[in-house]
């Protein structure tokens, strides 16, 4: 049976590139190296119950099968006739498709927004304001001796991040922290489960009390090897892996970040607690941060989605900058989808802006808060939409989703998502990274190829091909309109 090696995993921003797939009769039958999420995708993606296998169009309230020609024509007509169409999604497809999408947005004078507006959009706004000190994940893997996750639960959202790039990886200059964690685990769970300790640790339903509160481990300050600190409003599974867990009160991250900045600058805090964290403990954490050789702060949507949003990121970026006066420190957003970084990159090349780009005035205009998908929808301004490779009906707040569904809606998706079920036209595409090739950008901005390991089901087109066909049809419509006007 052929084994395909070095496959990239088209799911989360970790974008692992070491997956091994066994392919039998054009079907993936075995998956090596992937996490549970990756494995579930490679083994189940082709399940016909959850897949769109034919172009669909809504007639008398129900979705019925149609031909590609009709589906493309209908989509082009909807988009060409709309006065303020929204093109949304993009983070789970390849750069080539995104590039075609931007061309389409320009042609129809619409708004093109990718999922970063509801994910790390605030981080991007803040990076544009403050600047960022960052590096690639390879650097971190080999050199970082202090790893902090703030408002991010890698165990759940980026399952192999810890093992591939940070605390639990064997770097050239930094050993893995795994052994230390397992020996602590043994102390906690008793002799009976001793042998199973390391397997248990990775199970979802397994929980041990994290080291937190006043139990600040004294060795953390003297420890030379890799250390892991997790800061979150909620005790996550990742928090239990950490050498120390800081529980911040919900919506108080900003206070905590600014308090840390004060301590880095040797100022006194004249309170007992900040955001629920005793100042004594906070001082120790800051000492560990200043004392490390190469520190990294990964931050997740726990910071961008809670109160303060981009201002939280301002403070985190500024804290990193301050720390660089004492040691080396970098910071990186934990990007969610495997190509959300690529969506920003391509958008920057072609329009100058990373997301929420409005072409309605004939030139690219960028003002998140005004030209971002949730805002446009909440204000009920768009009159048609094309959604690709994302599921806003499931993931947007109710009012925004309702206004999206109310107007003509085109969906390009291999899967039957909630959004596809609500669409007026469904264009079934191939799974990029499994059935189609492309390029995507890992969270640290490193581009990697997406492989084609099996042949797609008959009659399905790639995201890029579908968009190019719509674009051609739109141009045709516009030409004939111009001719009839002349």
């Amino acid at each position, binding site marked *: 049976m052929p084994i395909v090696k070095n496959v990239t995993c088209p799911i989360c921003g970790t974008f692992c590139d070491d997956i091994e797939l066994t392919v039998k009769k054009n079907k993936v039958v075995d998956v090596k190296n992937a996490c549970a*999420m990756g494995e579930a995708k490679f083994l189940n993606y082709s399940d016909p119950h959850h897949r769109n296998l034919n172009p669909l169009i809504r007639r008398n309230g129900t979705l019925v099968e149609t031909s590609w020609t009709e589906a493309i024509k209908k989509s082009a007509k909807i988009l060409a006739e709309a006065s303020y169409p929204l093109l949304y999604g993009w983070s789970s497809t390849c750069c080539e498709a995104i590039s075609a999408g931007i061309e389409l947005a320009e042609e129809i004078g619409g708004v093109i927004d990718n999922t970063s507006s509801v994910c790390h959009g605030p981080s991007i*706004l803040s990076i544009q304001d403050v600047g960022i000190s960052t590096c690639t994940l390879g650097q971190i893997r080999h050199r970082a001796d202090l790893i902090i996750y703030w408002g991010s639960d890698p165990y*759940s959202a980026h399952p192999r991040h810890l093992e591939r790039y940070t605390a639990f990886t064997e770097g050239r200059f930094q050993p893995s922290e795994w052994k230390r964690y397992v020996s602590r685990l043994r102390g906690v769970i008793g002799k009976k489960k001793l042998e199973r300790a390391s397997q248990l640790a990775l199970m979802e339903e397994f929980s041990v009390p994290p080291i937190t509160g006043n139990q600040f481990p004294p060795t953390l300050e003297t420890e030379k090897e890799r250390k892991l600190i997790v800061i979150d*409003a909620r005790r996550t599974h990742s928090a239990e892996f950490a050498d120390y867990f800081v529980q911040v009160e919900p919506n108080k991250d900003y206070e905590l970040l600014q308090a840390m900045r004060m301590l880095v600058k040797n100022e006194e805090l004249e309170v007992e607690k900040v955001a629920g964290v005793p100042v004594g403990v906070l001082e120790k954490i800051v000492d560990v941060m200043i004392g490390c050789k190469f520190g990294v702060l990964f931050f997740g949507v726990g910071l961008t989605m809670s109160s303060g949003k981009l201002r939280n990121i301002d403070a985190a970026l500024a804290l990193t900058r301050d720390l660089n006066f004492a040691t080396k420190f970098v910071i990186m957003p934990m990007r969610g989808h495997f190509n959300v970084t690529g969506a920003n990159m391509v958008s920057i090349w072609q329009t100058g802006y990373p997301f929420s780009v409005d072409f309605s005035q004939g030139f690219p205009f960028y003002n998140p808060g005004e030209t*971002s998908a949730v805002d446009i929808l909440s204000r009920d301004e768009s009159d048609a939409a094309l959604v690709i490779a994302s599921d806003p*009906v499931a993931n947007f707040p*109710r009012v925004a989703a*309702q206004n999206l569904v109310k107007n003509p809606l085109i969906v390009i998706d291999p899967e039957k998502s909630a959004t596809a*079920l609500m669409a007026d036209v469904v264009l079934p595409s191939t799974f990029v990274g499994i059935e189609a090739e492309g390029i995507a950008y890992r969270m640290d901005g490193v581009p990697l190829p997406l492989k084609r390991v099996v042949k797609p089901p008959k009659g399905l087109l790639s995201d890029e091909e579908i968009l190019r066909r719509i674009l051609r049809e739109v141009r045709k419509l516009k030409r004939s309109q111009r001719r009839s006007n002349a």
Partner: protein
Amino acid sequence: MQKMKVTLLSGRTINQGTGKEHGKTSQEYYESVAICEVDTNDLDALGIKDGANIKVSTEFGSIIVKAKESIRGPHPGIIYMPYGPWINAVANPTTHSTGMPSFKGIHAEIEPATSAERVLPLHELLKQAFGKE
């Protein structure tokens, strides 16, 4: 009926992650997402059993999901729901001019669901919210 004021957080879970890769219309996805993790003592105080139906309300709407006893407690006054269509019935759409709605730290109330209230499967939830099938 007794109610309790709480703070609602939402986010990813590994089960939601694998559930969605089984397919958005799959049973795995439904079971991993139409839930709400609550602190053990809070559940007791409301007289809700692990796995029973619970009603979560915010100023933006209300939704019935399955209550799940949190294994990562204690976190009194904090409830947690995975991303998905169910949480979005109650999420805060305000973006404060950033483009980003507030998915975390939402003021909410929880109470036991009445016997007439049940957890809607995806199709019914969509039909109820958007009037389409």
